[in-house]
């Protein structure tokens, strides 16, 4: 179920809120099972055939965690993590690895076109975070309902944010509507939902119309003009931001409606003044996961500069692969690893850089590398690069209005979370949000609606 669909906004969400409120009021002990059932329904609505995978995944990981706690066998957790990665590999990376294997002379590996279950990357990482912390003695045991809800909680199951068990489990024990700030949370959740929807349908989707045709033309081998290439590069740069940060705002807002505070995922990343700063502000929960569960596990900064550089590059390359089963994603991740390594070396050498120049370097690097990420083939990316620097078709005309609006929103002003938490409960503010909500709802009714980019990851 898409957050930006009528079935979600007019049917699932009101029913879920009403049921949740009634249960919380009259049968609070049923609250978590009901939330879990609602979440499983939400997940299965897209394609019911994937729901068993999520359920089995929850059940098996929970049973292994229980077995580990009872027996203390250290091998169980690495086996479980490996099993999760194998499932992910089968569904997401089988053809990718088959293609790599087929590059070896004499090897012929078949393709299996299995549909990718939505959110599999996210719930796999959730399992890994819990199991790793369990093995390290940092995580306690949870019952099946709580663990299931941690994995499947509908605001975050499809595209995050990547939530640590320690950020959410204690909140499940609360009576959310008995809190003194319950009404405030609910109202701010509503505002976040509206802002997220507006970001998606007015900015993200608008920018998709700028970027998609150019990337399609590049993929089809058509010549691209300089204006079109910059339009595509900048268009996707801002599209991916508003698409994903809009989704995250909605997820955070929905979490608040059900009394749960989900972690922040964006902190004005396009205002970062270095690549390192960027990754602290962009998809923050993924960055933290990569840092804590890959980079540090690989040695981090504790084993000398060479290991650190290697760990950075490997972590970001794997992060790239996580985004998609394609070499373009791998190269994108690798480039960011190299960029971060250069950033580290620069810093360690004691050099400094004016902030504005740092921002320019960071933003240019991001715009140039995101082309490889989006293009889906190196040929298409190369065609865009050629055109950007004047070696494509003639023509400098570009659509820029939505890009300018997007840039203004991304570069100036607070994040949605900060803005929403500064606003007082004034009637005119509620009116402004209501009017925006009405327009957004009518916009959602249009024939062209785009899926969220991060659903494919």
């Amino acid at each position: 179920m898409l957050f930006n669909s009528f079935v979600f906004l007019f049917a699932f969400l009101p029913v879920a809120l009403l049921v949740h409120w009634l249960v919380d009021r009259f049968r609070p002990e049923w609250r978590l099972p009901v939330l879990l059932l609602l979440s499983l329904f939400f997940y299965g609505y897209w394609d019911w055939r994937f729901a068993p995978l999520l359920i089995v995944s929850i059940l098996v990981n929970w049973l292994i965690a229980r077995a580990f706690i009872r027996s203390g066998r250290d091998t169980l957790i690495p086996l479980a993590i490996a099993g999760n990665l194998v499932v992910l590999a089968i569904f997401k990376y089988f053809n990718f690895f088959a293609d790599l294997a087929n590059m070896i002379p004499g090897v012929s590996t078949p393709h299996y076109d299995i549909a990718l279950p939505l959110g599999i990357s996210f719930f796999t990482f959730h399992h890994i975070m819990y199991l790793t912390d369990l093995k390290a003695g940092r995580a306690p045991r949870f019952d099946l309902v709580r663990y299931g809800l941690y994995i499947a909680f509908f605001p975050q199951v499809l595209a995050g944010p990547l939530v640590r068990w320690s950020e959410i489990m204690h909140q499940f024990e609360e009576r959310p509507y008995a809190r003194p700030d319950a009404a405030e949370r609910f109202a701010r959740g509503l505002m976040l939902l509206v802002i997220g929807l507006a970001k998606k349908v007015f900015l993200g989707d608008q920018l998709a119309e700028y970027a998609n045709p150019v990337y399609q033309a590049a993929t089809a081998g058509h010549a691209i003009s300089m204006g079109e290439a910059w339009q595509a590069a900048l268009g996707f740069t801002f599209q991916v931001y508003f698409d994903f940060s809009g989704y995250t705002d909605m997820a955070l807002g929905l979490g608040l409606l059900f009394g749960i505070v989900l972690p922040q995922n964006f902190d004005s990343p396009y205002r970062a003044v270095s690549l390192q700063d960027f990754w602290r502000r962009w998809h923050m929960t993924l960055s933290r996961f990569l840092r804590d569960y890959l980079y540090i596990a690989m040695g981090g900064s504790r084993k000398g500069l060479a290991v650190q550089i290697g760990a950075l590059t490997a972590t970001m390359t794997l992060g790239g692969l996580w985004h998609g089963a394609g070499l373009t994603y791998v190269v994108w991740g690798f480039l960011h690893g190299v960029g971060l390594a250069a950033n580290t070396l620069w810093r360690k050498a004691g050099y400094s850089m004016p902030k504005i120049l740092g921002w320019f370097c960071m933003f240019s690097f991001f715009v140039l590398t995101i082309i490889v990420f989006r293009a889906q083939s190196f040929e298409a990316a190369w065609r865009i690069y050629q055109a950007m620097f004047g070696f494509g078709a003639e023509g400098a005309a570009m659509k820029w209005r939505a890009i300018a609006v997007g840039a203004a929103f991304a570069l100036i002003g607070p994040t949605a979370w900060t803005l929403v938490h500064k606003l007082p409960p004034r009637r005119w503010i509620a009116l402004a949000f209501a009017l925006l909500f009405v327009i957004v709802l009518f916009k959602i009714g249009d024939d062209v609606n785009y899926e969220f980019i991060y659903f494919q990851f």
Partner: protein
Amino acid sequence: MNSSTSSSEAPAEASGAAAWRRFSLFLVGVTLAGVLGILAAAYIIDPYDTGRSGLFERPGVRPQGPRTANASRGRDPAFDAAIFGNSQIQLLSPERLNKRTGFNFLQLAVPATGPKEHFTLVEWFLRHRKGPVKALVLDADETWCTSDPAMPNFRPFPFWLYSDSPLEYAKGLMRYDILEELPRRLGYVFGKNPERARPDGYWDYEPNYLNLGYDTRPEVRARLEKPYYASEPTFERDPKEGQRRFPVADRLKALADSLPPETALILVHPARYKSYLPPPGTEEDYQDRACKAAMKAAVAGHPRSAVVDWRIDRPENRNPDYFFDLSHYRQPIAMAIENDIAKALERLR
């Protein structure tokens, strides 16, 4: 997230909580009222002149695309015959046909549509006739040869606008276009001399193609000569003989059977440039022949029916000056097809 919890602040908290409750209720209430209010206004104002509300009636609509304008055109009582299809039949002129037949033709073609849209418009047109329908001309191009009973359409089409169900129509009104169209409709209804979309739906696409250089640019002209099916293998017999199914033919038969005997039903297979005709023996050729046969059989039961087939190899389809691209012909062919339609109608009188 901040929240104050000390007991001395309890009254302030309570009033703060009440203020936030009112905030949420107001936000949700105004949103619901706004949505329902706009939907109600849209239903009453009837932005596309569908006839569902008579309060803001004025014949016709402002100039706009045929997807939406055809709702108004299709219920115009002035017409007793109509043409349905996509851009492949768009160039047929109602005026010229009227002169030849004495009927009053309406052009309801919509670019980039297939059978699902065509039948929707046929039903809309028939539903709004009070007098007898003299002729229906249907463009049966390759999209009619689909084996998919759902007759998938590839471009958005406002099926809700032509729906029987008021609920589906009301649901369809919930789109951003409506917010833009409502004031335009009011401007059209209350304007002194508003510009009106052409009532008979005719649109001559020639100037557009000419502006784009389709008749002069060598690389565009060269595309015409590239055989579309050059790499297709040939077979002595249809490899799918007896297995081909054409759900559109079933739909067509149901329509033909439902028509009164006095209504002429003309099926047109629109012209194709020679490079786009499947060579004999290719699977596409067998498919084309089977499809045409199925369509012919579907209309055969109707006493006044005929098929006009221009999707064949004939001298006109070998003349590059008569085509912009492989499937978009120019006025000489449009007039020749009109001539064939008029002759068929003459025979059926």
